[in-house]
């Protein structure tokens, strides 16, 4: 190795951080033997240290770390609970899609043929029931008025199924149903279903 080659190599030498790097070993050994090269190397490393100190002396704005933390996105959690949440979300999504498909399929179907059935349950004022979940004896007075005034009426069975009650096409049955508002009755009628919605065309009402 010549002095020139050693200089070329030591041009990149930074000091202790590069001591373990084998590419500098031979050149460093050469510099230890050559006083002039050794002096040159000492000057170079001092310059390196001085430039490094100046660059590292630059102070970032005080508010920067706070700004970084404040503006960060919500991190993606890596724990298993998050995975379970994601799995649940996927499952729910798939279920909703399946339901929508079924619903869509259902919409294509013709109305099920009218079927005569007996239904026992409470006569509801559908408007108050759906909007405000109002039913039962405490709502009887209101339900009676509402049904009499033409609001839709329904019947809710013990198992929670609700039917919209109608008369024969063109005839309102509200006046008759108003007398049974919030009472438990058995209604004989023709059931039709569309889009999951059940309607009962009233033929006969019996008070239990």
């Amino acid at each position, binding site marked *: 190795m010549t002095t020139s080659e050693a200089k070329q190599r030591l041009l990149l030498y930074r000091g202790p951080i590069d001591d373990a790097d084998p590419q500098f070993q031979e050149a460093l050994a050469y510099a230890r033997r050559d006083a002039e090269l050794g002096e040159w190397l000492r000057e170079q490393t001092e310059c390196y240290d001085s430039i490094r100190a100046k660059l590292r002396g630059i102070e970032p704005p005080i508010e920067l770390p706070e700004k*970084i933390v404040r503006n960060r996105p919500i991190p993606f959690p890596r724990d298993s609970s998050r995975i379970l949440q994601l799995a649940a979300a996927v499952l729910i999504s798939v279920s909703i899609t399946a339901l929508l498909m079924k619903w869509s399929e259902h919409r294509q179907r013709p109305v099920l043929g009218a079927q005569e059935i007996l239904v026992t349950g409470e006569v509801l004022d559908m408007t108050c029931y759906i909007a405000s979940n109002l039913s039962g004896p405490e709502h009887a007075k209101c339900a009676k008025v509402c049904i009499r005034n033409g609001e839709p009426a329904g019947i809710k069975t013990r198992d929670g199924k609700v039917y919209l009650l109608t008369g024969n096409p063109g005839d309102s049955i509200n006046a008759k149903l108003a007398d049974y508002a919030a009472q438990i009755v058995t209604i004989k009628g023709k059931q039709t279903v569309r889009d999951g919605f059940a309607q009962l065309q009233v033929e006969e009402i019996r008070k239990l």
Partner: protein
Amino acid sequence: MSADPEFEDLVKLYYPDLYRFGLSLTGSEADACDLAQETFYIWANKGHQLRDPTKVKAWLFTTLHRQFLQARRHETRFKDEPIDETSPELPAITVDCVNRIDARGLLSFLEQLDETHRAPLVLYYLEDLSYNEIAETLAVPLGTVQSRIARAKIKLLQLLNETTPPK
């Protein structure tokens, strides 16, 4: 905002170095802040993909450098450049010459260097990264990195030598 001590600790540990690297690359305090913020933003989104925790620092510097290149629309593929054995002679410069300039003056000299040479030189001076780590950070071959650092260092020292007034 929910607290995330892990993220905050990481910011505290590395934001000064990233800011200085960004400032040395751009010469602009605002751009350096933006680059540091973008880097940590990307970390918050993608940092969990890093499997080797010892590479966090290199990952952050790589990301900041990429962001810088993207911003400058200078994303070009690097060619392998072997170490140039016929580099110009290193100018004779003493530590006194260096001591006469301040950090701002030093940054203005760095700005005069080509971007592809500035980044490795800044990492050379600023960070305790090995040459392999610098090469990895900048996604260029080791020989290319060393060649660029050598050329950039000579150029910087020449600028210092020419511009620094005698004592």
